[in-house]
């Protein structure tokens, strides 16, 4: 039964994909207007769209472009033209650096906030004010103070991924069942041991959920940050394609961004499964 559900879902997915690609192809074909009549000398200086072609690429064009990127991902033709593999590596490195730094700070602080009602109330106003700030709003400030665009993007990732982890850790720690803590107290477990052996495992699934939310946001933000500051990374890659008004390039990068985002999420989801427990 399970197997047949899987197979049916897969077939349905494929059907949706084929329908979507077909509709896309037909739509693009219809966009193409009749060839415009112009002086041949003039026509030589004009682009395909001016001559009645469509600026919108069809699925086949995008497929070709994707294949080109996949077969040659690591070329390096100078500081402004590197392969998609190198660009993705830059972005992933930035996201992971910012994310791990945020985790290193958010989880301990979240622990303290979760365990102490006084700290929770003291931190609360700051968290509430800073949490809704769009991470990109930090960019000018970061550029001005840090004076390095690469580090600034890492800082923006740091600042956007810190809040979900902080809040989830605090929530997870605060909502560990009283009975378990009381039992540990009765057994005269020391405070560090209790934090490590009782509270952390109990709060781990919530903490992991916070990390999963964070990395999702971080991946969303890095593209925008790199589009702003340029240089390297997948965001710069999108911007460079846009600079050339190449819709094909933009669509291929969207697909790459989606796939990498999904992979990052899958990794954390499987980590979350490791710490799951049933009550």
């Amino acid at each position, binding site marked *: 039964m399970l197997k047949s559900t899987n197979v049916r879902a897969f077939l349905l997915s494929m059907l949706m994909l084929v329908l979507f690609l077909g509709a896309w192809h037909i739509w693009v074909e219809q966009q193409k207007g009749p060839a*415009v009549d*112009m*002086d041949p*000398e*003039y026509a*030589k*200086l*004009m*682009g395909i*769209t*001016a*001559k009645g072609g469509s*600026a919108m690429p069809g699925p086949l064009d995008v497929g070709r472009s994707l294949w080109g990127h996949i077969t040659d991902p690591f070329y390096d*033709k*100078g*500081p*402004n*033209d590197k392969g998609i593999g190198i660009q993705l590596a830059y972005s992933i490195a930035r996201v992971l650096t910012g994310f791990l730094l945020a985790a290193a700070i958010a989880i301990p602080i979240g622990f303290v906030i979760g365990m102490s009602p006084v700290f929770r109330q003291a931190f609360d106003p700051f968290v509430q004010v800073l949490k809704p700030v769009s991470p990109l709003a930090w960019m*000018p400030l970061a*550029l*001005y103070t840090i*004076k*390095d*665009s690469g580090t600034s993007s890492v800082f923006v990732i740091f600042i956007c991924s810190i809040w979900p982890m902080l809040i989830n850790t605090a929530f997870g720690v605060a909502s560990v069942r009283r009975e378990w803590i009381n039992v540990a107290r009765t057994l005269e477990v020391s405070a560090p041991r209790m934090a490590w052996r009782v509270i952390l495992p109990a709060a781990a699934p919530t903490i992991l959920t916070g990390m999963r939310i964070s990395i999702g946001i971080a991946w969303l933000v890095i593209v925008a940050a790199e*589009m*702003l*500051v*340029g*240089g390297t990374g997948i965001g710069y890659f999108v*911007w*460079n394609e*846009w*600079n*050339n*008004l190449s819709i094909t390039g933009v669509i291929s990068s969207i697909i790459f961004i989606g796939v990498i985002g999904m992979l990052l999420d899958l990794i954390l989801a499987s980590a979350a499964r490791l710490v799951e427990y049933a009550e």
Partner: protein
Amino acid sequence: MGSMSNPFDPSKSLSSGCPCGQHGSMLEHRLAECAGEAPKAGSPAAPSSEARAEAYAPVDDRPAWENREAVVSRIVETAVVKSVFGADASRRAFLRAVGASTALAAISQVFPLDDLKARVLDAKGPLEKSALKVGFVPITCATPIIMAAPMGFYKKHGLDVDVIKTAGWAVARDKSLSGEYDAAHMLTPMPLAITVGAGSVATPWTMPAVENINGQAITLHNKHKDKLDPKQWKGFKFAVPFEYSMHNFLLRYFVAEHGIDPDKDIQIRVLPPPEMVANLRAENVDGYLSPDPFNQRAVYDGIGFIYKLTKEIWPGHPCCAFAASRKFIDENPNTFLALFKAIIDATAFSSKPENRKEIAAAISPKNYLNQPTTVVEQVLTGRFADGQGKVRNEPDRIDFDPFPWHSMGIWILTQMKRWGYVKDDINYQAIAEQVYLATDAADVMKSMGLTPPSATYKTHTIMGKEFDPKKPEEYVNSFAIKRT
């Protein structure tokens, strides 16, 4: 005068010695002078406008490297002339008889003067650093800065330069201010604006060379093909690439001359150049005055037409510039000189029409402009489709001339004043002379065998109206539409 006077001038004596008597030779005297001048250049900007004007008061405040180079080259010439003639009297007689240029040529035959000069100049110190980052915005104005990389002009001057593509001018300014870029492609008004602190923290900035003259255009959406009179533009939305840009000032000037108030009758928005074409397609803007290749790109994609080239508004107007902070020049005089020479070299190469096709092919790839080669070629060669069904031939559609006229700087400042970007009273001449390194550009151009103009001021004619750089305030007040 001592060994600093021109040895090829028959009216001057060559008896050496320093004028103040405190130094053993003229060289020591001049170098001591340079050392005394150097700290002034790096002094931080003062907060109030009066204090700022005072800080800029020493107009002849040149960085040390420039003096040192001129001094060294002149001393070599003098030493050679002296050794050839021995007695001063015979030198004077000889020069009077044959003329200075013949004498120079004759002596160069026996004595490779340029080689000697070069060796002495090289000996004055190695490059402080050779790996540099130079920022650029991907437009054809940046042609010399960009093509110097693939065509080897930086390498020729011993530099290893990475040219880094930048999304827009705000980012270029921020990355330059933060020191991430050693030098950058900027718009000619930007170094002035940064120096006076308009739109950023006031930081002493310099503009050693102009990149391009002309090369911009007003592009309108195809639906406006029947609205060729600016008086029909009321309610239009225009885009310019940056507030402190020639594009903004020229567009404002152009519409104001036709009786349209740029702040009330039309709307002017700032858009990064690459986004202009897409916004024109989406009809978010009715037109723009933007750098190429985005005017030509709108034609190429069948979205808009070229209404007017900016050379028809002000023939030979400056547009983009090569800019660096005073701090960079003071800390890296030798590196800066090499970079400066590479840029002048590349600009001179770009100004030759026969090189334009080759340049178009070199700067079109993804690493640089990332545009179809035919678009870039139409811009650089001036043979282009205008979007109205005609092929036009305008060889000077874009041209390259490194000389940063002080009078151009003053014109830009008058427009900043006219439109209210600068509120305080400013000393036009002092600021223009501090930021636009025209004298230095002339020296470097001369040392490379080019012929710079002899003056740094001239009158400009913009849409038939004359601008006299000696009367900036009167010029601002002469306009009917202004914000002051």
